[in-house]
């Protein structure tokens, strides 16, 4: 069937199976590979995208159920220019990244959280990261960078 989606501001139609995971459509049909296919079961958060601004694991969203919600991927954040998001800036400035596979998902999950919780504590940030796994960093620097992005005293 034909599925019409608004992705990073563009309205596009796809002839596809409505049960197909949104992740696969983004990666294979749109070549938007910033969402990573890691566990495909909703455990790791590496494929997180925004639907109407809310983070969701795109591996668990059938394309037929997206409806008229706006899909934003990591590529749709800040678009052409430099990484302007304070969280992305803090990740770069504080040498947080290692292999990098989890980071697009981290940005997509933590960005809305810190925007909604400007006074969040380190512990609250850790809790907000429960759905985002990282195998390289041991997490602490991610938490510290998120605090930096909040302008929290360290």
């Amino acid at each position, binding site marked *: 069937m034909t599925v019409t989606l608004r992705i990073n501001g563009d309205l596009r139609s796809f002839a596809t199976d409505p049960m197909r995971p949104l992740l696969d459509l983004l990666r294979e049909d749109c070549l938007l590979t910033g969402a990573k296919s890691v566990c495909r079961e909703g455990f790791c958060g590496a494929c997180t995208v925004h639907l109407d601004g809310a983070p969701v694991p795109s591996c668990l969203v059938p394309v037929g159920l997206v409806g008229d919600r706006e899909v934003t991927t990591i590529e749709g954040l800040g678009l052409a220019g430099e990484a302007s998001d304070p969280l992305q800036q803090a990740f770069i400035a504080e040498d947080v990244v290692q292999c990098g*596979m989890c980071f697009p998902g981290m940005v997509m999950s933590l960005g809305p959280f810190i925007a909604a919780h400007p006074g969040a504590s380190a512990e609250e940030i850790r809790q907000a990261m429960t759905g985002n796994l990282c195998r390289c960093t*041991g997490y602490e620097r991610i938490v510290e960078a998120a605090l930096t992005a909040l302008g929290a005293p360290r």
Partner: protein
Amino acid sequence: MTRPAAVMDLPRRDAADKVRGRTLYTTDRVRPGVLHGAILRATVPAGVIRKLDVAPARAMPGVRAVATAADAPGMHGIGVADHPLFASDRVRYNGEPLVAVAADTEAQARAALEAILVEIELLPAVLTMEAALAPGAPIVHEGWKDYETLFEGGEREGNIAWVARVERGAVDAAFARPDARIVESVFRVGRQNQAPFEPRSALAEIRDGRVEIECSSQVPWTVRSVTARVLAIPESQVRVTVPPVGGGFGLKFDATIEPVAAVLARLTGRAVAVVNNRQEEMATCLCRENADIRIRSAIGPEGEILAREATVLMDAGAYGGEQVFLTTMTAHTLGGNYRLGAARLVTKAVYTNTPPNGAFRACNGVYNTFALERHTDEICAALGYERMEFRRRNVLGDGDLGATGQVFEGDVLGPMLARAEALRERTGSAKAKAGNRLYGRAVTVGTWFVFVGPSTSTVNLHADGSASVVTTGVEIGSGTMVQALPQIVAAELGLSPEKVAVRQADTDAGGLDMGVGGGRTTVSLGAASMAACAEVRRKLFDAAAELLQARPEELVLREGRVEVAARPGAGAPLTEVVAHAQARTGPVSGSGGFTRPGVPAMPGCAAGHFIDAIDIPVFCVHDAEVAVDPETGHVEVLSYNVVQDVGRALNPRAIRGQVQGGVVQGLGYALHEEITIDEEGRMRQVNFESYRIPLAGDAVPVALDLYEGAPSIGPLGAKGAGEVPILNVGAAIACAVADATGRKVSQLPLTPPRVLGLLRGRDPELRLDHV
């Protein structure tokens, strides 16, 4: 000590792309039009293939090629060529590849696998090392005697794939001394899955008649040679390139699916992608192996270690692989930290009908250190020594002998223990956080090494004042290619690091490299690059000498200029000198190589070892505090301090990131990453629901003291810093839990049920009579 120009906290140049989702890992390079490969795997642990009819698969929609063992006749391996790409007559593990299919879509390829007719006659399987070593056990490789030997010197016999032995000094006499007090311990650990976020992935195609493979690998040259071996083609016919890798941790230190992609590309003449899904990736993971360990020590009246004996059984799984090599490392991990009057160490890699194991960050060092340090604490408990005092008295110092008779240089572990105490003074104790729970603390030592070996680097200096570095190094996330190499080359050539471009791995462009692993990348590629820069400087100074009317030895490189050392300001911009050279003698480039220098061991001590002595030892001291909940068996890590020997910290901030990450990975191993093998020989934990890697809430902030100044042949005195942070985490947590509970901790991971079992004394004590 003046700080070398190469030392700085250079930020990662790949970070901006990585946080914006722009980095293209191998899995992101599967473009429309590429064929998809899928692998049919055995579903029994041992058997004889009676029928393998692939004709129905060839007739399925979208199928472009079907490959079997006939298409990949060669065997590969480490030490012994025991491993085919596809099973032909015998199946040796559940999950072994039988057939690969290339089709237009992945769904079509997987559907075609279903159509293949397979009949396998079951054979009795050996699923544990105990079963494999029992008298009359079924032999996993009946033809083991006929395999090609790739490295001489290892004993092999039936299900024993390889034996490494060390014997130094009069061991039996020491144990027989009337004043010797003997302590014996046994230990068992399970497997650990590396779980890198990017699965093993490969894209292969045929260009100009050659096989070109783009893959997620730590070892481009191994992929090149293994692919050539199994396809029975010359190595020169294979090119391997590696884009950024989404984590490896040792899993990608061997070739697995890359040759499968190559076979399918050759059969179809098309580009073929083979990408493991998460379940396949975990079911066929080349894990850190499970192991059974027995250690005995004879302790003298002064608390000295008169002699030590140990036997380590490492489960290789169905094929020898890395475990054959790693038998070597018992000598250095059980015999490279404490002074031993005499030593007898025997390590066996054992075949079982289970998925093959591999390399994982600090490999068997992690569990050997766990065993050694728990044994050390059992010695202290049995004989009444204070744990820290016993360590201080017995750790290796300057001029002491390792197990193989290698002479260690410098007092390192002793001062590091003192630094650990000073660090604890600064951080304070978190004991108050234990509340009503059982509190424990432990300080453990560990010895690992830098796996030095061949690396090559070519440095080109350009007329715009920039340089490009060509190696076959891979950026797996550790930062070597994006931080250490630009820092080193920039410092050697007087440039800013932004002006140094580093080429991604391409075996057609760069020379031989042993691969990214074993903490070797910064050391080996850094040293090779420094040698390349020396040649660049020589050519540059020759050209400048003519231009400046000075002798080459009078010249220095300073901030983008070639200057006469004695006359600051007298010189010419680098750009002018390079342009001059280009016109007169040719463009300025240099090449350098590096390999291990070969530190001597005592002749006759070691048999079956790939390395008799360690060229660059690396030492660690870890200090952990834990709270154990007596009601639930849950272990909370209250604090974690590390003193790490880094030789020279080239990028201290990056090292801190590696240590934090390595320690948390080790906490997973110590506490909750558990793999068990079911009765069909499969790993039960094949996704992130059943295999629990640490979450943000499991992490603890690591307090770190970088210990600099220990001897190292690495560039500027550096040692690898990324591999070793995991080394003694299992040891520190286990010793702290033993301290908290007063129980013998003999197994990892310390899951709540296992800890409750210890606390309530309901589990029988580990015996391991087969070791």
